[in-house]
Structure formats: structure tokens, C-alpha cells
């Protein structure tokens, strides 16, 4: 039997016992008060257990967010060689112009 199932079964059994007292027409007010407090304690214990589980998942989620952010950062949408080629084009064009000027001066 899984842990979650066992908790659920224990909760169901406890709730039923509490309801037997609270819904009874014979139970004394003192007995009912104890049952009401037990109901509150039982509910709170399980709610806090669930809250801790959520907080545990949140910690895992935080780590996953960092991992996914790293994947995004590693993606190269622009081609890095394109920038080099574009810079090279500027240099070659400038070299051609200089060469042309030089040639004109000589002639």
C-alpha cells in the first residue's frame, strides 16, 4: 500500500469516527468539543503536510527554471560567422578602395 493511500485511509477512518460523535444526538457537549478539536487538528495536520509537499516541489521548480534559462542562453539565433563575414566585407571593400586610390595616384 502506498504512503499516500495509507494516509488517505487513516484520514477517512478518523473523519468517520469524528462524524459519529458530532452527528450523534446523544453525545455530550464535552465529547463534541473534543471531536471538533480533533477534526481541526486532523485537517490542519494534513493541510500542512500538503503545504510542505508543495514547497518541496517549488524548490525543484526553481532549479528547473535555472536549467531552462541556461538552455535559452546557449541557443544562437544569429550566426556568429555572419558577423565576421560582414566585418570582413567592410575590410575588403576598404582595401579595394585604397588599392584603387593608390593605382590612380601612380598613373
Amino acid at each position, binding site marked *: 500500500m502506498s504512503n499516500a493511500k495509507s494516509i488517505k485511509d487513516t484520514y477517512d477512518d478518523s473523519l468517520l469516527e469524528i462524524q459519529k460523535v*458530532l452527528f450523534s444526538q446523544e453525545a455530550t457537549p464535552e465529547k463534541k468539543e473534543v471531536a471538533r478539536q480533533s477534526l481541526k487538528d486532523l485537517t490542519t495536520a494534513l493541510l500542512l503536510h500538503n503545504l510542505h509537499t*508543495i514547497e518541496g*516541489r517549488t524548490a525543484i521548480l526553481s532549479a528547473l527554471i535555472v*536549467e*531552462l534559462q541556461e538552455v535559452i542562453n546557449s541557443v544562437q*539565433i544569429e550566426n556568429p560567422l555572419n558577423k565576421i563575414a560582414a566585418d570582413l566585407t567592410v575590410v575588403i571593400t576598404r582595401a579595394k578602395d585604397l588599392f584603387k586610390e593608390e593605382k590612380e595616384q601612380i598613373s
Partner: protein
Amino acid sequence: MKQILIVCLSFFIFSCAGIPTEALNTYKTSFNSFNATSDEFLVQFGQTIKWIKDREAEQQGRKQRVYQPYPKALPDSKPVGAIDPNVAEMRRALQVISKYNDTLTALAEGKSIEAVGNTASGLTNALNGLAGLTIAAPVANLVATVAQELERARLREEFRNALAKGAPIINQMFVIFEENIKTHYNNNVLFANERRTLIVEEIIDEVTLLQKLVKAHKAPAPDDKFKEVSGRQKALNNILVPISKEAVVKDAYPYPLQTNSTGHDWTPSVESNLTASIEQIQQNVESYSAEIDRINALAKSLTAYKGMLDTTKNCLDKLLAAGEEAPQLLWQAEYILGLAFQVKQNLAEIRRAEIAAR
């Protein structure tokens, strides 16, 4: 020889599978619908966490033996109305997934392909005539085309890598969302069980008082202007139907109203007390039913929301597995829009039930 090589290379690149844009678009549509609906869920989720934390604070307060009308220790500095950290992290996860999807889209759009083509053309133009070098126009065009195809191949590789690395992380995030959806439902069930039990207790206590009141009196005479006890009994039985399946109640129902031939006379005061008592019982039964309606609407809403998550997961899996042929995903797009509508409809039901339960 060089030209043959270039043509062969071009042919090889052209024949490779492209980015599965249709699968990507369907996954994005599905995720965007899920993301848009998530705000509603996260508001509820945060509200329930607040109830739990309030309950925890209440319990701590009960344990405190010495009266102290101020915090026992300095509270954490938190701006008023700050979002619960669990909710904040779930929102952040959705934002990062959106950003990741935008990155995939940018790769699929391939804007850099045109840029690379232009750079290649610019470079061959610049080289043309340099130191006597002559590049024929068809060769220059072919160079630009090959450069573009190489860029297309790079983008495709980048896309596949990003998908292979990112999809498993997103799937794990989705598992956490799924688990939180289930826990959110369980938390609400715990609160509802407690409220329901306390309401039924109140009803039974009121019914017991009512029975005692009737038992202390003689039945009203037929010519009196009072309602007959049998009529009251019938009304009470009908009012109590919604709680008649509860533990203990199912064995005791219907609760008999028995007069006492040796009791006091039936007076207008008894009559009005009886009416007030039955009205109180009815009001409590309505709150009980509203609480049940709220949880049933929540169950439907969360099932639809979880359905949206499952569909998004399914679309992501198909995108990851997409090969040369685009997967058939049109039904998912329509299905998820239907689920989004269902979530909204159920949320309206929850709000109506919440108002009725007050």
C-alpha cells in the same frame, strides 16, 4: 569539379528535413491557452495556500501559553499583498517556458538565413575585382544560396538541440504543475470535509432542539390556526434530504417530530420558534449544498485545466518526435480551446457556489 561539388552539397542540404513549424505552432497555441488560463488557477491556488498558512498561524497561536498581543518574533519583511513564493515560482516557470518557446520560434522563422545570404552576396561582390579576381554572377548566386542553406542547416541543428535539451525540463515542470493541481484539489476537499462536517453537526443540533420543542408540547388542536405537525414533519424531511446520506444521519433519517399528549399547550410562541428553527435548518442545508457544489465545480474546472496541461504535454512530445512529416495536431488546437472555455464556465460556477455558501 568544384561546381559539381557545390551542386551536390546544395542537393544534400535541400533534401534534409526542415524545422517542424506546424508542430511548433500547435504546441505554442496549446501552451498559450494553458498559460492564459493559469492565472485563474494560480489565484485560487494562492488563496488556498493562504488559508493553510492562516490555519498554521492559528494553531501556533493556540500553542502560545503566555498572552502576547504582538508577533512572538520579528516577521519576515514582505511587502503587503506579496505573492506567495510557491505561486510566484509557478508564474516564473510559465514565463521562462514562454521565453523558451519564443527562442524556438525565432529559430524556426530563420531570419538569419536572409542575413547570411546578404552577407555572402556582399562578400563576393567585395572580392570581385580584388587583385584581379573575377567571380561570375551564377557562381556568386550559388555561393549565396549555399551559404543560406548552410545557415538553414545550422538553425535546424540549433532547433533540434534546443528542443532535445529543453523539452525534458519543461516536461518535468509540467509534472510539478500536475501534482500541484491534484494537491490543490485535495486541500480544498480537506477544507470542505471540515466545513461540511461542522455544518451537519449544527443541523443535527438544531433538529434535536426542534424535536425536544415538539415533544414538550401537545399537538395543536385541528381548529387552531397553527400548522399541522405532520406538515412540519414533511417539510423537515424534504429539507434534510441533501444530508441524509451522511454517516449516522443515514440511520437516523427521517428525524421524527413527536408531540406529547401530556405536554404543554401549543402556543403562538412555540409556533414561531418552530418556524425559526426550521428556517435555520434550511439555511444551513443550503450552505452545505453550496459547499458541495463548490467542490464539484472545482473538480470539473481542475479536470479541464489538467486536460489543457495534458494536451500541451502531448503537443510537446509530438514536436520532439516530429520527423520529416508534420504530425496531425489540428484536433489538439480545437480541443484545448474547448477546455479553456470549460475552465471559465466552471470558475463561474465556483464563484456562484462561494457566494451561496456565505
